């Protein structure tokens, strides 16, 4: 337990010390929530803007943490030889992965609390939320996006990985049903978007905020999670 806690503390310390990480994990999601809830840029239809935005921004926060933050940090750790060196200690892969996942979960809990408080301040109505369902889909989404992040981090050089993670983040941001619902996109993009994990994830979170669920989407996201985690485990390299 001492070893796991020490590694967890190290993961959190490194994550929090990086200014760009804090920007990605907290400042950007909160700024986007505040900005788009106060403007009329987004086609939210008759729905209350904050009710539409909050689950989307929450899914963006999970993607930021589980995919981009974890993926970029792991890619650079591999490049710097951090993982190779840790591999010569009694830490072991299981404790390393457990510490990384725990660090992500702690950050996501903080994001959930901060975004919920900001959402409430902006007029979000929490009466219809199914909190248990939200938590289940956040866990599923975390697995799915961590799998994508680690797959890229495990195969690409650190700089390529950085570019790929940010590029994919932008794609998910624009086409993933986060700010614009998939059915509002042009038809071709809409079809592509509806199968993307970000679209499925943000849709499921949005459903959970209204206490509903589309079972087929939940199954599809589960398949994504299993596939990405499997690919990450099979393809991952601990050193260049």
């Amino acid at each position, binding site marked *: 337990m*001492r*070893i796991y806690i*020490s*590694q967890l*503390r*190290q993961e959190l*310390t*490194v994550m929090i*010390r*990086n200014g760009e990480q804090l920007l990605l994990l907290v400042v950007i999601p909160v700024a986007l929530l505040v900005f788009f809830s106060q403007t009329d840029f987004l086609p939210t239809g008759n729905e209350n803007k904050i009710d539409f935005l909050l689950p989307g921004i929450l899914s963006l926060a999970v993607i930021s943490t589980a995919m981009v933050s974890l993926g970029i940090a792991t890619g650079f*750790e591999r490049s*710097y*030889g*951090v993982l*190779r*060196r*840790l*591999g*010569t*200690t*009694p*830490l*072991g892969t299981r404790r390393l992965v457990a510490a990384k996942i725990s660090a992500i979960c702690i950050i996501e809990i903080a994001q959930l609390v901060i975004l919920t408080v900001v959402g409430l301040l902006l007029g979000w109505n929490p009466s219809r939320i199914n909190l248990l369902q939200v938590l289940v889909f956040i866990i599923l989404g975390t697995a799915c996006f961590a799998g994508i992040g680690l797959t890229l981090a495990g195969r690409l050089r650190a700089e390529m990985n950085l570019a790929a993670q940010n590029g994919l983040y932008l794609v998910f941001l624009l086409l993933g049903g986060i700010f614009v619902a998939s059915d509002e996109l042009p038809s071709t993009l809409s079809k592509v978007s509806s199968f993307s994990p970000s679209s499925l994830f943000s849709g499921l979170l949005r459903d959970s905020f209204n206490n509903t669920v589309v079972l087929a989407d939940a199954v599809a996201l589960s398949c994504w999670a299993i596939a990405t985690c499997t690919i990450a485990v099979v393809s991952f390299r601990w*050193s260049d």
Partner: protein
Amino acid sequence: MSAKSCELRTVMVMNISTKSHEVAISVRNLVVDYKNLRAVDNISFEAKAGEVTVVIGPNGAGKTSTMEVCSGVRAATSGVVSVLGLDPKKDRGKVNSQIGVMLQDGGVYPSARVHEITRHYCNLYDNRTNADELLESVDLTRQKKTNWRKLSGGEKQRLSLALALAAKPRIAFLDEPTSGVDIFGRDLIRNIVRQLAADGCAVIMATHELDEAQRVADHVLMFQSGQLLANAPMTELQNETGQRQTLEDIFRNLAEKSKSQGTQ
């Protein structure tokens, strides 16, 4: 291979079997391949507790690959490697708790602070050292709040050495420990290496700095093109080749003889 270097090998094998020090690492017929390249070509040696075994040779000669296999970082293509009587890959957990590894490229989070990363590494071992004492031993107490990326080259090397010693290791694998280190830092690292051996640790030290190697070596492994040119106690090498010869002279002579034999 020249007759003399063949003799050296024979002498060494006899000496190993007659020395009283415990064998910490035993390597038999080790081969390491990378795709189309044979990095280590059927080598055998032993390293003993209480001795400094220096590993020398040109870039790409197989030094780091051999150390990586012995420290469990890399799998051998073939051959038998025993570390403290264990398989460094299959028994990685048990081996890792008893070894300290100093990599060539640091392997530290750039934003990590000196004391923080040292304390973390100390926490990874049951038989751990006190982080403050460890930093004092490598003269980094004043830099304890400094980030890794802000340390000088020599300071990074000393911190990297400290992390390798966090386990109070029975075997220390040190890859280029004095590279980029100033004269005082070298003195300090040399003293630590000698003290480790005096305390019964088997020190395996790869280096390009042959004068430094000569000062600390009990035993020498000379690599070239993945093979061992020599595998002998330092005193045997000097007796065989003449006391006035430096390690650099000995290496040059053996390399040239090996090369000329290869071209014949």
